């Protein structure tokens, strides 16, 4: 049951990766990669539920912390370039 949700989330990650591949601007790709990473965090938590290991949750906590810093740095340093090309 939970594994079905995990597989669905992997399919949704593939759908968002289409946007990462074809996105017209760079910040489209960053937003789609942000969505993929959040769904990967959820997948870590659900795998921890399936395998009954709380170690997956620590990985998910650290991953979400790093993701937040990542996105802020991307948004800060990609702001003033001409990204429409």
């Amino acid at each position: 049951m939970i594994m079905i949700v995990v597989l669905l989330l992997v399919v949704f990650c593939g759908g968002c990766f289409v946007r990462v591949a074809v996105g017209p601007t760079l910040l489209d790709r960053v937003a789609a990669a942000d969505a993929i990473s959040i769904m990967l965090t959820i997948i870590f938590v659900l795998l921890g539920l399936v395998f009954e290991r709380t170690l997956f949750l620590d990985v998910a906590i650290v991953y979400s912390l790093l993701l937040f810093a990542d996105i802020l740095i991307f948004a800060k340093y990609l702001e003033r370039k001409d990204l429409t090309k």
Partner: protein
Amino acid sequence: MSVVEAALSVAGYLLVALGTFFCLAMTVGILRFPDALTRLHASTKGLTIGAGFILVGAGILSGSAAFAARTIVIAAFMFLTNPIAAHAIARASYRSEVTHPEMEQDEYSEYLGRQGIVTDDDH
């Protein structure tokens, strides 16, 4: 299995299913919407709510206090940081795009007294 355990299990599965539906809606929005800002609108709202539902549902389904506490910590952290990250991306996207073809009204541009891209000294 007592009645309370059955009710908790049903509630957990319902929350996980609802969160998965929100993730599906987010994926459809991020693939189908026409503009970067509307795609961000879909992804941040859908993922904040969807991740919150799935994490709380997983915490309920696990049945252990340590697991549930950590999932609720992750959910609270996502509710704090996901809108901030989306706001940062939207601000950068607004300021770095020369034209916004889908935008009918652009009051912030008039407030800034500019058209198009921001130069380095306008921060």
